[in-house]
């Protein structure tokens, strides 16, 4: 079950989204997230949500994968929705199930619940698209390039990016190893699933000790393998895949700019009085 995590996974492809410069993708994703938090009405939220869907369609990633990624946040979404309904008392009252506690469901509560749920889903959809369509190495390289101004503060950006590449590379390997160790301990009679929280936490110690020991051995061996391939830590490395902003990236930036403009205008300067333009949050 631990292997079913699709978040952070990469699906190779050659779609428009795959071919975008990874730096552009990171910047666009960050701007999109900011836009999501700036937007205050259903019109701009809907616009952002639809753009996320269009981006997914362009990426040609199967919808099943996307839904699987969303499954992990169902609880979070439901919980946030309920909180909004419970605590928001604005608007007209729709229903008073427990009047003696002063509990009521209002239009304001329902609207803000829907708003926040859509916002979270759009956030997850768009940001998981970044990792779905960008290889971990490309992601690390792009972050390295984006952070390269930090070099003037003597931050070793190259090593940071190498650490990230290796960390991302070993996540699946370590997850697999946790599975194996857990099975091995269960076979020896370890009880990992019942008992109080502290008991269960204690039962995990025999899982993590072997994991840590083996991680150190992996690191020791990987260091030799990297040395064999002429890595020294301060190589002047070149890259097989050069990062170059192209026409696609400018188009994507253009669309993003338009979206942000609409979101900011309708959220802060709007003079319309239609429902979907009214500020929800």
């Amino acid at each position: 079950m631990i292997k079913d995590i699709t978040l952070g996974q990469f699906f190779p492809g050659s779609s428009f989204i795959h071919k975008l410069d990874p730096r552009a993708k990171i910047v666009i994703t960050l701007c999109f997230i900011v836009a999501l938090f700036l937007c205050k009405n259903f019109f701009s939220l809907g616009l952002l949500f639809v753009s996320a869907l269009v981006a997914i369609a362009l990426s040609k990633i199967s919808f099943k994968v996307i839904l699987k990624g969303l499954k992990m946040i169902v609880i979070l979404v439901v919980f946030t929705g309920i909180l909004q309904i419970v605590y928001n008392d604005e608007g007209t009252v729709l229903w008073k199930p427990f009047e003696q506690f002063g509990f009521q469901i209002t239009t304001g509560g329902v609207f803000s619940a829907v708003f926040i749920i859509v916002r979270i889903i759009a956030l997850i959809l768009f940001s998981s698209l970044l990792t779905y369509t960008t290889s971990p190495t490309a992601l690390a390289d792009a972050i390295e390039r984006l952070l390269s101004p930090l070099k003037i503060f003597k931050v070793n950006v190259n090593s940071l990016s190498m650490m990230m590449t290796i960390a991302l590379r070993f996540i699946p390997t370590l997850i697999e190893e946790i599975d194996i160790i857990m099975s091995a301990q269960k076979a020896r009679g370890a009880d990992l699933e019942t008992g109080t929280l502290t008991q269960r936490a204690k039962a995990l110690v025999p899982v993590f000790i072997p994991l840590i020991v083996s991680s150190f051995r992996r690191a020791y061996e990987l260091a030799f393998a990297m040395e064999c391939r002429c890595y020294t830590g301060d190589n002047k490395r070149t890259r097989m895949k050069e990062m170059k902003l192209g026409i696609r990236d400018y188009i994507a930036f253009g669309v993003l700019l338009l979206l942000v403009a609409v979101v900011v205008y309708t959220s802060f300067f709007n003079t319309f009085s239609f429902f979907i333009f009214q500020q929800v949050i």
Partner: protein
Amino acid sequence: MENKHLLDFQNVFYTYDEEDKDSFAVKDISFTVDKGEYVVILGHNGSGKSTIAKLSNSIFVPSEGKVFVDGMDTADEKNEFKIREKVGVVFQNPDNQIVASIVEEDVAFGPENLGIPPKTIRERVDNALKAVGMYDYRLHETHRLSGGQKQRVAIAGMIAMLPECIVFDEPTAMLDPRGRREVINTARKLNSEGMSIVLITHFMEEAVFADKVIVVDGGRILAEGTPREIFSKTEMLISCGLDVPDTVKLSLLLKEKGVPIEGLPLTEEELTEEYLRILNL
């Protein structure tokens, strides 16, 4: 002009413990590997095989004695890169020598460290992947490959450095029979194309194709010779915890029972031929 060996160990000692100079992991090792040669090193666990592998490309530097790669002293730091380009090492655990999450990005790691232009890296990576039969998998995720495939990716990572010799340190120890065949066949194919191969193993069947077999025990070289010479010394092999291939065992047993087998058939084909010859008499 002096005859330069590709790999030349001259009375090499190595200790992991600088304090206790007597605890050598490798003692007085001398051997050579020439261009295009296929050398197999046999020895059971702890006999110093991995230490020899790491001494061969300047990962370790001899405590005493000298190792030369194409005439370059491995103790001389300024030769480090050239030596590691010439002699690559493939280690036992396929998981712990893959750096990147995507096959082609991992193969590109070595050439990227050398600071080669992107176009050349692309060519080298494609050629290396084709050489090990993994070109179709170039966009796959490394952690989803089988053990044999991972090991072939690791080999491709070395080939992309354009080495003249690849040292395999028990490359098949963690693989299933199919993975073992894949890796050994790849090594033999590379050898037939002119690459020098040093194969460290404790599978006797993998030694029969060698030009030269070296047996190590307790850090020392016990015997050196053609596979036929080595496998005829059955008692010596058994005394240092090794075995002989099943075909050799069978022919020795038949000889003992009075079957007039001539010489020492090493492979199944040779044994079948010899048996047919006897039957025709």
